[in-house]
């Protein structure tokens, strides 16, 4: 069993790694910047934990994202906290067990987060709001990557293990 402090530390390290990867990926290929890895992590954790845990996870992920992005601190923290709270309520009220359902929920959560961010920017009178096309692209790509990560990767790993057990060569 990991202590609560250990879990928080692991989460901080995970978010820092995701944030760092997200600043590097657009350098390799610009469209990779549409993947909101932080939202995938926050979403998947929020669906599996208590309400308070989800809220703190959203706040932490958002704050780290804000610190790395170079914009307004609190913007993504606010949006991710609100979205994580919504996801925790959703997971508490409905059965969200399938990986596909999780991918769809994470995609929707990304879109909702984008709308909240856009609303906050408008409210505070700051420029830089994302276009609807960019917002929908981000949501779609993030949901797709979430689906691949939760459905595809475990299946590939399981298939690879089966083949190894049978002594067959992996192609």
């Amino acid at each position, binding site marked *: 069993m990991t202590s609560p402090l250990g879990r928080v530390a692991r989460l901080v390290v995970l978010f820092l790694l995701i944030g760092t990867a997200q600043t590097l990926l657009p350098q390799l290929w610009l469209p990779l910047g549409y993947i909101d890895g932080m939202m995938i992590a926050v979403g998947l954790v929020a669906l599996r934990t208590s309400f308070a845990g989800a809220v703190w996870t959203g706040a932490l992920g958002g704050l780290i994202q804000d610190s790395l992005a170079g914009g307004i601190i609190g913007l993504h923290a606010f949006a991710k906290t*609100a979205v994580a709270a919504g996801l925790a309520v959703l997971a508490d009220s409905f059965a969200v067990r399938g990986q596909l359902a999780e991918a769809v929920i994470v995609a929707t959560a990304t879109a909702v987060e984008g709308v909240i961010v856009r609303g906050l920017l408008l409210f505070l009178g700051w420029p830089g709001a994302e276009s609807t096309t960019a917002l929908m692209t981000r949501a779609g790509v993030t949901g797709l990557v979430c689906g691949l990560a939760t459905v595809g990767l475990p299946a590939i790993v399981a298939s690879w293990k089966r083949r190894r057990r049978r002594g067959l060569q992996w192609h």
Partner: protein
Amino acid sequence: MQALSRTARNAALLLSLLMAFFLIMSLQVNRGSTLAAARGAVTGITSPVQRIGSAIGSLVTSTWGRYVWLINADRDNETLRQQVDELQRRVAAGDAARRENSRLRGLQSVRASLAGTWSGARVVGRDFTQRYETVMINRGSRDGVERDAAVIGAGGALVGRVIQVSLWTSTVQLITDPMSGVGARLADSRETGLVSGNGSAALRLNYISTRAEVSEGEAIVTSGEDGIYPADLMIGHVTNIDVGPPVPGTPRVPLMREETALFKVILLDPSIDVLRIENVLVQLPASEPTEIPSPEEEP
């Protein structure tokens, strides 16, 4: 009762966090503060990982590029394949080196022509939220970089300014960021205005009087009056000129729009392609030592 108190506790936690974040945002809007200490702490932790990741990323892209190229080369005649492989690899490596060399020579010649001390830097990261136009460079406070330092690219074209410095890296706000502002001057008419991002690849030049003579293709340079950017750095060229909104309170007179407007609306094509910046020069404080690290030199 217990369930109710738990719900109340959860609601209180959520509301207090949201209010705290809203307060932090409002403070930044009002005071222009960007909570540099908190941000610096996070980038300070992540920047070494970013530098390593950037190096690995370059290695992966070059290896991947070679792999794809090798698959295509495999279709060639078998006997010539190895020679072609070798020659093409040399050509590719030579081209890459020549391009790199040309970029660095360009920066070197620009640096020689500029007043003040400038350090070469490489772009190692980009804003992943894509809501702000920022890039991360591999020079930080350890290299003498300070907040608000001007950053230029190939040909001396303006790239932006440093908005955040950590030990190893700095975040540069690009001139295309809608929140950026650069004191600018029309190269021919010498009229001054303010260039800001336009939420697109184009820039916008504001506060140029409708009476000013502006022509398409005219160069826009920094005015040096904003206290951040040195004067006469290239920003871009005029691509579109329109008339701004009429003066508030003036009756609308069709066909006399120009008479009632105060300013022109001018769009610019930036001199630098912000999506393809690789090497830049960052201005150092005047008291820094004259020994300048080259862009490729890793600390």
